[in-house]
């Protein structure tokens, strides 16, 4: 992709090239957010035996656009006693944390925003910026309930980054690289080479490693849901904290940015899980249906599948209480993942 763009005379070696490269995920993110809002609406409605919007366009396909338009033209209310600078800055920080993660996700064999060898490490680090944004949002709102929600949310995200990192470690140990492009390339051989099924290892090792990689994958899914603040981990956003937790005092464009950042974060988490465990842009059939364009289709499909699972789980399960949430992270997931890491390491060495 980069070579293709470089060949266009106007872009060439100028800064415009990098701006275009950076804008591509942004465009993808916006389109994806619209689609996911619609998918969530429809999936949740059909699970609940009802139809969702049917009037804005056939089956409500234009509803997300209507939502965006509505949010754009809404008044931006800022509480009088709020810290105006922080209040304005925090949505964009949250957005930046999510958008920055798009740089290291391999969308196809020909396109990755930034082909650094520390891809995974960078991803885990940059998604922590979200925490800063959330805390800033809760503090700047000058609202007791927002602060409650923000602090809880921060504690939750920080706690669940550790199981996520450990699960990622399992995949990294098998693929022997932190670069997501290399990890995806390693799973090109077809569905049997996917790391969730043991990766491209000799058969005995593969069978021994498979239960642990499956557990690690499921744990990564759960940690991902917790990172995005969705049910069953959405106590910071709902219920006793009324309205929206740290989101309470936001409206209009800033709320739209928060909203979109949440959906984009869902995709980031899904794409990371897909790249590491489900083969990324590699086709499950090996050579058939593979190629640069097909790769993009595959990773989006896998990402959407995991997003669908996230939506499905949201509308099925009740919420965990804050202390139960912490218990799950620290006392259940981390020991289990330590066990996985240890076992996989042992198997690979022996």
């Amino acid at each position: 992709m980069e070579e293709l763009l470089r060949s266009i005379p106007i872009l060439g070696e100028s800064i415009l090239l990098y701006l275009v490269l950076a804008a591509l995920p942004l465009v993808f993110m916006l389109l994806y957010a619209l689609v996911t809002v619609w998918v969530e609406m429809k999936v949740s409605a059909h699970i609940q035996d009802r139809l969702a919007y049917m009037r804005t366009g056939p089956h409500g396909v234009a509803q997300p656009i209507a939502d965006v338009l509505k949010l754009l033209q809404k008044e931006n209310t800022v509480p009088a006693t709020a810290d105006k600078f922080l209040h304005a800055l925090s949505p964009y920080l949250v957005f930046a944390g999510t958008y920055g993660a798009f740089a290291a996700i391999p969308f196809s064999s020909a396109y990755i925003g930034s082909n650094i060898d520390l891809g995974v490490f960078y991803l885990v680090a940059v998604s922590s910026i979200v925490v800063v944004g959330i805390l800033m949002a809760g503090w700047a709102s000058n609202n007791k309930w927002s602060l409650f929600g923000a602090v809880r949310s921060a504690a939750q995200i920080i706690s669940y980054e550790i199981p996520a990192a450990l699960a990622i470690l399992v995949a990294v140990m098998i693929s022997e690289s932190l670069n997501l492009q290399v990890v995806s390339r390693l799973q090109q051989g077809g569905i049997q080479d996917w790391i969730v099924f043991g990766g491209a290892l000799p058969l005995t090792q593969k069978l021994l490693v498979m239960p642990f990689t499956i557990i690690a994958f499921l744990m990564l899914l759960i940690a991902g849901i917790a990172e995005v603040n969705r049910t069953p981990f959405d106590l910071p956003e709902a219920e006793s904290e009324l309205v929206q937790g740290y989101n309470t005092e936001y409206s209009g464009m800033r709320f739209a940015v928060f909203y979109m950042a949440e959906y984009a974060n869902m995709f980031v988490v899904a794409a990371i899980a897909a790249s590491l465990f489900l083969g990324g842009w590699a086709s499950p059939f090996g050579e058939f249906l593979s190629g640069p364009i097909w790769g993009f289709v595959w990773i989006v499909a896998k990402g959407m599948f995991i997003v669908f699972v996230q939506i499905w789980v949201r509308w099925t399960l009740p919420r965990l209480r804050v202390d139960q949430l912490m218990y799950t992270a620290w006392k259940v997931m981390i020991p289990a993942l330590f066990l996985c890491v240890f076992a996989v390491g042992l198997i690979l060495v022996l």
Partner: protein
Amino acid sequence: MTNAVSDYFRTIWKAISTIAIGLKTTFPHLFTPSVTLQYPDQKMKLPERVRNRLYVNIDDCIGCDQCSLACPVDCITIETIKSTPDQDLGVTSTGHKKRLHVPQFDIDIAKCCYCGLCVYPCPTECIVMTDVYEFSEYDRHNLVYNFSRMVPQDIETAKAKLKKAEEEAAAKKAAAAAAKAASADSAPGQSKPPAS
């Protein structure tokens, strides 16, 4: 000690199994048809006994005021004018002879609580609850339904006739009383038997 450890694993197992059962329960619903009716394109079919907006067939109303008395929220206002014997107001469709003009029959449908208590006492079954439920208005005063069809002229005529009849009756009564007093004066000997 072992109790806590086995509890720990049992909780994890129960959590995983019940979550899996829950997910399995919701997934098939994605493929079952939904139960939503697309109103206003599709409307629910209402049963025949349904109690929605009131309707009064004013031609059948005999002005007995039973519905107004039965209403628990006082949403029916009725005014009647007695008719004189020379007026023939006709007969209702159920055979009752109408003896009262009804110049005002207002129902404030915004106050109505749709209990149906006004329907039962009506002797001519002229007040009924229909199946109309789409009757919202922009102005609240339009929700006061005036069922009477008497024009002000007719109301005045009826009132005038009633007044005249009452005056005539009063005059006749006065004349009869005067005549009795006169006959009692002219025949003093004849005493009436003592009143028991």
